C-alpha cells in the first residue's frame, strides 16, 4: 500500500453534557489511524462507540477537542479560506438515512447542482452533464426534475452518493449507507459503491454496525469500543482470528446466514452492555465485560500495540511489559 491519504493522530472529541459543568462525553478518545489511497477502511462498533463522531470529525463536521487530522500531509484543522474549500471538495460524506439527508424542497437537479455551484465548476451544459452522471449511478434521466419524495429509498441513496462523488473527491466517509435499506437494495448499493471506487480511484471510510457488510466492503477494519480503537488491521485476518476479546465477542454475535454453520459454531454470548461514555471504567474500558480480566486491566489502559506488521491490538493479553 502507498502513502496514507489521511492520518489521524491522537484525536479527541469531547462533548459537554448539558446541565453539568465538568461532565464530558468522551465520544472519541485518543484515536490514531491511517487511511491509505484507494483502500476501504471499515469502522465497526456498537451504537454510541463514537464511530459516527469519528467519521464526521475527519471531515471537520465536528470540531476536534485536540489532535491532528492530516489530509495529504496537511493538518486540516488549521486550514482556512481557499485551502479549506479545497479540502471540503476532496472529502465528502454519505449519510445513513437518505430521507433526511436530501432536502425535500430541492429537486434532484438542484441537489446535484449545489456542490458544482459552490465550488464554481464551469460546464457547458449542466443538464447533459447531470444526466450522464445520473446514468453512472443507475438513475434514469426522468428523475432529474423530481423531488426526493418521488423516489424510493434505494434511488434516494443513489442521489446522495452521486452528490458526494460529483466533485470527484479523493475520500468519502460512508456512514451506515445501507442500514436504512432492504437487503435486496442493500446489495445493489454496495455493488455500486465498489464500482465507483474502482472507476474513480476513491478512498472510503466505511462506518457500519453491520459487520458482515463491513467485511465485504473493507480491506482493513478498525473495531471501536467506547471511543477507542481496540483492534485494527487486515479484514480477512480480523475475521479469521480476532485478537481482542471484544472483537471475538462482536464477531460471534453476528448471526450467520447458514443454519448448519450457525448452529454448530462455538458462541460467546456477550455479557452485559456497554457502559456510558460519560464515566468510562478506568483502565481498559472493556474490562467489566471481558472474560479474561486481569488486575492490570482495571487500572492501566492498554496501549495499541503492533502484534504483526500493520496489525494493532489494544489489550494487555498481547502487550508486553
Amino acid at each position, binding site marked *: 500500500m502507498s502513502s496514507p491519504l489521511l492520518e489521524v493522530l491522537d484525536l479527541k472529541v469531547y462533548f459537554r453534557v448539558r446541565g453539568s459543568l465538568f461532565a464530558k462525553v468522551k465520544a472519541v478518545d485518543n484515536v490514531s489511524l491511517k487511511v491509505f489511497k484507494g483502500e476501504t477502511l471499515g469502522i465497526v462498533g456498537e451504537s454510541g462507540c463514537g464511530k459516527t463522531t469519528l467519521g464526521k470529525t475527519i471531515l471537520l463536521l465536528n470540531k476536534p477537542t485536540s489532535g491532528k487530522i492530516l489530509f495529504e500531509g496537511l493538518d486540516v484543522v488549521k486550514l482556512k479560506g481557499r485551502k479549506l474549500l479545497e479540502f471540503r471538495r476532496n472529502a465528502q460524506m454519505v449519510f445513513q438515512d437518505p430521507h433526511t439527508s436530501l432536502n425535500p424542497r430541492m429537486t434532484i437537479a438542484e441537489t446535484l447542482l449545489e456542490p458544482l455551484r459552490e465550488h464554481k465548476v464551469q460546464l457547458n451544459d449542466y443538464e447533459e452533464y447531470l444526466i450522464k452522471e445520473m446514468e453512472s449511478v443507475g438513475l434514469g434521466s426522468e428523475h432529474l426534475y423530481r423531488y426526493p419524495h418521488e423516489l424510493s429509498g434505494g434511488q434516494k441513496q443513489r442521489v446522495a452518493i452521486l452528490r458526494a462523488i460529483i466533485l470527484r473527491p479523493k475520500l468519502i466517509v460512508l456512514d451506515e449507507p445501507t442500514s436504512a435499506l432492504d*437487503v435486496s437494495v*442493500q446489495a445493489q448499493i*454496495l455493488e455500486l459503491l465498489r464500482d465507483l471506487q474502482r472507476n474513480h480511484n476513491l478512498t472510503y471510510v466505511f462506518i457500519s454496525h453491520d459487520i*458482515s457488510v463491513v467485511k465485504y466492503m473493507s480491506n482493513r477494519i478498525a473495531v471501536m469500543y467506547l471511543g477507542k480503537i481496540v483492534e485494527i488491521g487486515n479484514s480477512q485476518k480480523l475475521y479469521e482470528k480476532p485478537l481482542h476479546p471484544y472483537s471475538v465477542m462482536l*464477531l460471534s*454475535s453476528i*448471526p450467520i446466514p*447458514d443454519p448448519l454453520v450457525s448452529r454448530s459454531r462455538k458462541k460467546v454470548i*456477550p455479557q452485559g452492555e456497554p457502559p456510558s461514555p460519560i464515566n468510562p471504567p478506568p483502565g481498559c474500558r472493556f474490562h467489566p465485560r471481558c472474560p479474561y480480566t486481569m488486575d492490570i486491566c482495571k487500572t492501566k489502559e492498554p496501549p495499541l500495540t503492533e502484534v504483526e506488521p500493520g496489525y494493532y491490538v489494544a489489550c494487555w493479553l498481547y502487550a508486553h511489559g
Partner: protein
Amino acid sequence: MAESLQDGQVLKVRDLEVKFYTYAGVVNAVSRISFEVYEGEVVALVGETGCGKTVTTRALTRLIEHPGRIENGSALFKRRNNEVVDLLKVPEEVIRDIRGNEIAYVFQDPTSALDPLYTVGTHIVETVTNHRKVKAKEVLRDAIRLLKEVVIPSPELRVKNYPHELSGGMRQRAVIATSLSNSPKLLIADEPTTNLDVTIQAQILELLKNLQAKYKMSLILITHNLGIVAEISDRVYIMYAGKIVEEALTTDLYYKPLHPYTQLLLRSVPNPLKRIEKLESIPGVVPSLINPPPGCRFYPRCPYATDVCRREEPSMIEVEPRHRVACWLYLKR
C-alpha cells in the same frame, strides 16, 4: 366447522386477506395466504419491508385498524382448554381474552411498546390482572421472578423502574417479560432485535430460544435478517408482496431454495465466513400493492420469467416433503 386442526397444530391460517382502503387506492397488503404453526415450533416469517409480514400477524388477533380490513380467511387456534376457535370470527370479548394471554406479542420497538408513565412492574401486573382474578401484590412478586427469568440484573429494583431508566436491551427484556406473564401458547416476536446492537441482539435471541423451550410455546418470529432465521427457526415462510412464495424447513431453505426470489435473497446477504467476489442483487423494486401485477408478483424482477408468469398466478405446490413453493418453474402445465 369446515376445517379442523391436525395433530400438534396450534394455529392454522387459511386464505387470509387484508386490505387497506387508503386515499391512494386499495392496498392489497396480504393476499390469501395460508400457513400453520405447530406446538413448540419456531416459525420464521421472512420478507422485505412492506411484504405484509407484520400485517399478517397483527390480523391474527384482529389488531388491524382503520383503514385496514380483514376481508377473508380463517385462523383456527387451539386454546389452552383445547377448544378450537376461529380467531377471525369469534366475538370481540373472546379475542380480547386471547390477546396478550394465549397469544402474546413482542414488537420491534421496545420504547414505544412500553408506556412511559408506568413502571415495568405495572406493565406486568396490568397484563396479568386483565386476564385473571389475582391480587396485584401477588403478581408483583411474580413480576420479579419474570424479570429474573429474562436476565435483568437486580430485578427487585428494576421492577420499580420506568422505561426511560432502562437501556434499549433492558427495555426489550422487560417487554418480553410482560409478554410471558400469562405463559402464552403462541408468542409473536415482530423484529424483536432490529433496533438493538449485535451483541445485545445475540443476548435477546439466546433468551428467546431458551424461554421458548422452557415454556414450550410456539414462536412466530418476523424478521428480514436471514442470519437470525438460520440461527433459531425450525421452519420458514418467505413472503413477497403480500404473498407466501415458499415454505420449507430451515435447512432445506438455505441449501435447496426453490423460488427464484429466495435464491436471489440468499445470495444478496454477505456471509462473513465466506470470501465473496460479488454480491447478487435483485434488480428492480418491490411492486406497489395498490395495483399488484397480475400473475406472479415477482415476475417483473425474475430472471426466469416466462409468458405464463405474467398472465397467471402460480399456486403453492409441494415439490418435496414439507417444501412448498409458488412458482411456475415447478408447476407442470
